[in-house]
């Protein structure tokens, strides 16, 4: 019960979160985010998707207090996003490695460790462990200005984990990584999730998001267009895929009966899934065609439950 309660605990919550960029004279220039309502629960991997300029990075920056909302609220661990103390429990991997290039890897992690008021012994141990974890032991004494992009991303990840955070925000985590590094990053994300950490990630690499995320939100021009569990969203409802035999439900039953009658084996009889990339592009197209509307309606998970209850009733 406690585990369930903890899992359903809301770590990030945005209420009508709006961000409008204004010019020097106070005139509206860009509406980066409009009335975003979002919840991220403890222990899940949440993906934030959208084309360039959709408001993903703005959302993350609002959650971290790097920007102030025009209206609405962003809460992290129940506290306002501008409160500094909430950062004790957060780790943040920036889009690029915005680290001090004149420091080496050890100095970098030691510096960030000090910012968490960690003792020398803790910092030393943590620095050692993280550098080993990201596979940069051989370059620990080199200044970051000599690092490749991939190496810098690894150190960026290490600094994001220096305080063993409960919530980790990853902005384009696999950018600049080779396929092996990408796989390692995804494995790490899943491992962190299994350890009970909450992860919010932004990415353009939809395949990577599909592999690791539990739930996703799709933003377009500052508005939330879709929100739900990945497997639910990717389900194509008006298509029935029969892997072996069967057509409609009745036909499926008949097919099942026929198959059973004919001593056959039903390999699968379910709705097929499309790819996340297809879904993403479809939503963007539909949003362009119907601006201002969320074309897919309520969250898919709830819809499924409603359908299931109706089927039972029918049954």
């Amino acid at each position, binding site marked *: 019960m406690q585990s369930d309660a903890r899992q359903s605990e809301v770590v990030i919550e945005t209420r009508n979160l709006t961000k409008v960029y204004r010019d020097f004279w106070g005139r509206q220039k860009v509406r980066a985010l409009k009335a975003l309502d979002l919840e991220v629960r403890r222990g899940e991997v949440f993906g934030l998707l959208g084309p360039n300029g959709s408001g993903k990075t703005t959302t993350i*920056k609002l959650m971290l207090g790097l920007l102030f909302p025009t209206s609405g609220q962003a809460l992290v661990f129940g506290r306002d996003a501008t409160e*500094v103390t909430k*950062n004790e429990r957060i780790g*943040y991997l920036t889009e690029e490695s915005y680290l001090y290039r*004149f420091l080496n890897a050890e*100095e970098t992690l030691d510096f960030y460790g*000090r*910012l968490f*008021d960690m003792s020398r012994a803790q910092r030393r141990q943590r620095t050692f462990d993280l550098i080993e974890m990201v596979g940069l032991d051989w370059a620990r004494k080199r200044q970051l200005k000599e690092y490749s992009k991939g190496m810098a991303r690894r150190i960026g990840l290490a600094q994001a984990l220096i305080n063993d955070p409960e919530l980790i925000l990853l902005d384009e985590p696999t950018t600049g990584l080779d396929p092996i590094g990408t796989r390692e990053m995804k494995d790490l994300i899943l491992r962190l999730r299994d350890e009970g950490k909450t992860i919010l990630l932004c990415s353009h690499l939809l395949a990577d998001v599909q592999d690791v995320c539990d739930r996703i939100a799709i933003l377009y021009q500052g508005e939330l267009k879709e929100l739900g569990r990945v497997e639910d969203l990717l389900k194509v409802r008006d298509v029935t895929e029969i892997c072996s035999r069967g057509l409609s439900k009745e036909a499926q039953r008949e097919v099942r009966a026929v198959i059973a009658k004919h001593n056959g084996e039903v390999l699968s009889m379910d709705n097929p899934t499309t790819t996340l990339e297809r879904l993403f592009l479809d939503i963007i197209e539909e949003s362009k065609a119907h601006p201002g509307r969320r074309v897919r309606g309520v969250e898919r998970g709830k819809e499924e439950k409603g359908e299931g209850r109706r089927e039972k009733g029918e049954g």
Partner: protein
Amino acid sequence: MVIERASATLSFYEWFPTAALSWLVVVGGVCLAALLIGWLATAVRHGPLAAARIVGRVLANAAVDVICISPRRVWALGWLAVRESIRRRGAVAVVFAVFIVVLMFAGWFLDPTSTHPARLYLSFVLTATSYLVLVLALFLSAFSLPSDIKSKTLHTVVTKPVRASEVVLGRILGFVAVGTLLLVVMGAMSYGFVVRWLSHSHELTVDNLRVVEQSAKDKPELHEGFTSRVREHRHKVTVDASGRGSVAMEKGHWHDFSAEQSRGKTIYRIGPAKGMLLARVPIYGTLRFLDRTGRKADKGVNVGYIWAYRSYIEGGKLAAAIWTFDGVTEEQFPEKQFPKGLPLEMTIEVFRTYKGYTGDPDNIPGIPGSLSIRNPKTGKWVEARIFTAKEFTTDVLYIPRELETSDRRKLDLFADLIVDGKLEVSLRCMQRQQYFGAAQADLYLRARDSSFTLNFIKGYVGIWLQMVLIIGFGVLFSTFLSGAVAAIATLGVLVGGLFRSFMFNLAASQLMNEEGLKEVGREKVMGGGPIEAAIRMLTHQNLITDMEPGLRTTVAKMVDVVLSLGMYVTASILPGFWDYSFADYVAYGFDISSHTILQSACSALGYLVPLFVAAYLFLKTREVAR
């Protein structure tokens, strides 16, 4: 040495209460004004009650952010600033290299014929250090935060549990550490440079001396001559028959003289230079004047100089400049140490209404003057010394311990003329139609000397305080301006601070009449305010004649009043950077008292606290990612 600041002669304990009260009033007023403006600006958007809540919340958060500063985080951020300054920015290395080059080639361009080489060398090293360190501090502090914001490295810092107050404080302390390290190294090198370049000796042989003809037959034989020429000078030497001699002062120093016999020959030895690197501890008195009829006057005569630092007394009249000293005791001037009497040093200026001389053309007489001592109880004056005024130099005179009155009574200086530690010394000019000019700091008692090395270090403390102020302003401006603009703003503060006195005088000249200026101790600046001065320049008018009455003049003067008000307020806010400069003290050989250091340090702290709070508020309310 010129001392224009009245506070320079006050003790710290006399200065502090008034200064602290003024600070509280000003800072309190600024805080209230800022709160009001903040509330008004917020109320426009959110309404008055919500605005009050928001302002209250901001204040509460600010209090927490300041009180809950983590020393470990501040240390980490400060250490980052140090490493950034040294590793990333080549400015530290460039400044140090420039300093080395300047020192190496200083001997080529420092005037070897200077009458006071010690003053020249000391002024040079202190000025060079000051300019280089201040420029470095300006660039480091103004560009650091904007660079971090632009490169987004600050994002990874502020997304940690780091308060804006810690970011600001860490930067300030980090840059102060870098500047201090550089100052220590430059100071040590400067000290070595000065001592090395000033130390020298001369040679003297028997052949350099000749017998001086004596008018009286029974007078002992005297030899006179000159030492070898070293560093563009030589000293006159006088040796008596017994072999005792003295080396005359030249270019502000002298040497010890000794003679010894070796293998039947007399060998003269001239010791190292003395009297160049000093730290006199003066006892200053308060100055008042008597006019030509002997009545009390606020000031002496103004002989027409624009710079009214000195007042003048008319010669051959009852006019006098009288210094009153307190706390003068015989223990301060023991007879063994001061056998010649009470040592008094005097730098006076002579104003001649006529020039020329009478008598021997090779012996031009100076202007005679007299020093008298007054008994504060009886009011009677006793003439102590007649002297010939020495211009452009500091004259050393001794008030004898035993004085004789006009009716030939013998008086003891300490027993009969100094009452309860109070001593009055009167200066008069004895030649008609000539004037002596004097300011309060022009005459003092010289009780003892402090350590020159310690005084040199104190001189660098002044530069350090200037550097800390520049860093404070640089960091403040960098929290809300881009790097280049912050640098310009900080430079503006520096230049404005250096010309603060002029700005006050200029503004006061537009806002006050002559009497008002006199009351606040300001000098009139001719030529009007900025607009009037511009009109005068364009129309080729001089500074003295009045502008033609008309609409243009009226409008110009009205605008000047408004601008002058702004200038007055700005000058009041800016720190007076000259006030933190002790270069003159070190160069002229005067001890920088602990009171002066304490005053300056308190004053600098009085600026730094509001600078820190303002920088914190600007950074806190700023969207770092924008």
